[in-house]
């Protein structure tokens, strides 16, 4: 309980600190936001007008307060470049990014966990070494490069074997599920490779620890084979750790997801952020960055809570540790 309260408090504090950080990063620009947004050729009058329009001539505290109040009401502001509401833009682009993240994770889990189990269960040193090398090499390929290689191998039109489209997302979106799914396949493989390798290594080490522990030995004493005991008892005991690792990997794979979104010309959130930073659409960038960071803080919180729910030993340990001064 103490852990829960502390974790929630830190979550709110981190959200707050993050909003200050994002706000400050956009206000310590050389010159100011209005001058940057108006561009090089703007006259002083135009800059002044834009400044008043965006409310940048008011005190910082008032600006920050207004932004925060609007955020709390779900109003992310209006893009100065396109004139569209940032909320609508994010909602539309989330239809590409979240399925992509989901597919990446699904691919990584279906490849990484079985391979990790196989690596942990392998007995011959040569086989263990081979698994180890596969995990290291697969985890060392930049997503940009694996994406390019996949385009060269499997892209329709330009690849050796034209299987999947390599550019863009269907206009109809998910109303054309087949086409939408196909257009996300290569990007998901490209960004999933590193994640799969990382999950494989973590599964191997978590299951390896369990194999040396008493629970698996007990299972074997009760008549299970080593493999049965490892998969039915060891894997289950390793689950809390793996949930935690999968959550962390989610945060790390966002770089890859953004890279492949740009590489495969997918209209996702990552592509939007990069475009908006490039366009100096700073009011939109401010809200988008905060929203995304808040989302991942929330995912982190949920993963931590799941980890604690799955592993009661941990909750007991945290309370005892916290109580000791």
């Amino acid at each position: 309980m103490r852990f829960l309260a502390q974790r929630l408090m830190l979550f709110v504090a981190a959200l707050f600190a993050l909003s200050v950080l994002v706000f400050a990063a956009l206000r310590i620009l050389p010159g100011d936001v209005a001058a940057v947004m108006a561009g090089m050729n703007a006259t002083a009058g135009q800059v002044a007008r834009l400044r008043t329009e965006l409310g940048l001539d008011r005190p910082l505290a008032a600006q920050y307060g207004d932004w925060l109040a609007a955020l709390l009401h779900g109003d992310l502001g209006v893009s100065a470049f396109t004139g569209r509401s940032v909320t609508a833009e994010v909602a539309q682009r989330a239809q590409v990014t979240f399925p992509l993240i989901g597919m990446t994770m699904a691919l990584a889990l279906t490849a990484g966990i079985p391979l990790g189990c196989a690596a942990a269960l392998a007995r011959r040193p040569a086989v263990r070494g081979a698994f180890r090398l596969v995990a290291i090499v697969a985890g060392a390929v930049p997503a940009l490069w694996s994406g390019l290689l996949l385009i060269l191998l499997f892209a329709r039109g330009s690849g050796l074997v034209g299987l999947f489209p390599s550019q863009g997302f269907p206009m109809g979106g998910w109303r054309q599920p087949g086409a939408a799914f196909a257009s996300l396949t290569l990007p998901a493989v490209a960004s999933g490779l590193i994640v799969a390798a990382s999950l494989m290594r973590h599964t191997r080490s978590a299951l390896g620890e369990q194999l040396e522990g008493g629970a698996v030995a007990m299972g074997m004493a009760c008549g299970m084979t080593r493999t049965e005991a490892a998969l039915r008892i060891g894997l289950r005991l390793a689950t809390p750790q793996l949930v935690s690792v999968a959550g962390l990997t989610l945060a790390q794979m966002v770089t890859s997801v953004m890279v492949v979104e740009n590489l495969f010309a997918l209209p996702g959130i990552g592509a939007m952020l990069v475009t908006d930073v490039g366009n100096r659409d700073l009011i939109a960038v401010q809200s988008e960055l905060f929203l995304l960071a808040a989302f991942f803080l929330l995912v982190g919180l949920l993963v931590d809570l799941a980890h604690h729910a799955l592993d009661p030993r941990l909750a007991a340990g945290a309370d005892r540790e916290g109580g000791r001064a």
Partner: protein
Amino acid sequence: MIGTSKRRGSAVRGGPAVCGGRAARAAGAAGRTLYAVWSRGGGRAALIVIGVWTAVALVSLVWTPWPLLATDGYHTWQAPSPAHPLGTDGTGADVLSWLMAGAATDLAIALLVALVAAVWGTLLIAAMVSRHGALAGTAVVAVDALISIPTVLLALILAVPLGASVAVVVCACGFAYGLNLARIARPAALLAARSAYVESALANGASGMGVLIRHILPNSLPVIAVQLSMSAGTALLAEAGLTYLGVGVPSGVPSWGHSLTTSVRFVTVYPAAVLWPGLVVTVAVVALNLLGDALRDATDPAAVGSAPPADAVEPDGTGEVRDGR
């Protein structure tokens, strides 16, 4: 008390290195560890690759086959030839020269990220194992909360005021990997902090800071070194991704991410140009990961892998905590 000391002592060998000649002992331990890494296949390959990488980076500071700015509009996207061993890029510049110069930038980035992560991570570890209960509890939960923020979002936030720069990569990665380091090294540090020799040092009037430097950090050093080696590899992947997204190394500065990015646009026309930059990054990251694995094996003879040579099992060198729990 004696029983406790015996039990702890077996887990954290060589902790109380309080006698004279500490520098010499530390150098000796480092030399033995290096030899143990060298005497493993993976470790030897890693050291060779890193050695070649460093040598190339140093050479590139004074000499490259072609000047970096030597462009040639009549010889763009050339296939490898005696004049240009790896061909030329879209401006007719020599690919090998740019990769050599990129080696220096990427080496600097890897080292700086490791340095920032080490300093920031050590501060966090110090807070996490502090005897001040509230501080320690807050630090643990704060790390849990902050670790879920993606590196790329931090980089984008920093890139708004700083623009594309090496500092963005170093700060964003250093911050994120410092959090990872703290989380991973905490069990080892905690075990040392709660040990009998730390208690006795404190009872003898040692300051908290002194205990941290003389006992807790040396005992966590193996875990820290392994994690830093892997983090340096991840930093190279992040550099490639962030540079492609336009917030990493600025255009015009040679880096492997830059070389990879310039090959992207015409990938379907000149597929061969993609090969070298990606391969170089992958090999370097594999080497850093192999180094990490070899370091772990070298400091923990009981770990899986090939049996170490007898003289590599140092009796009093870097003690290793296999598993903090």
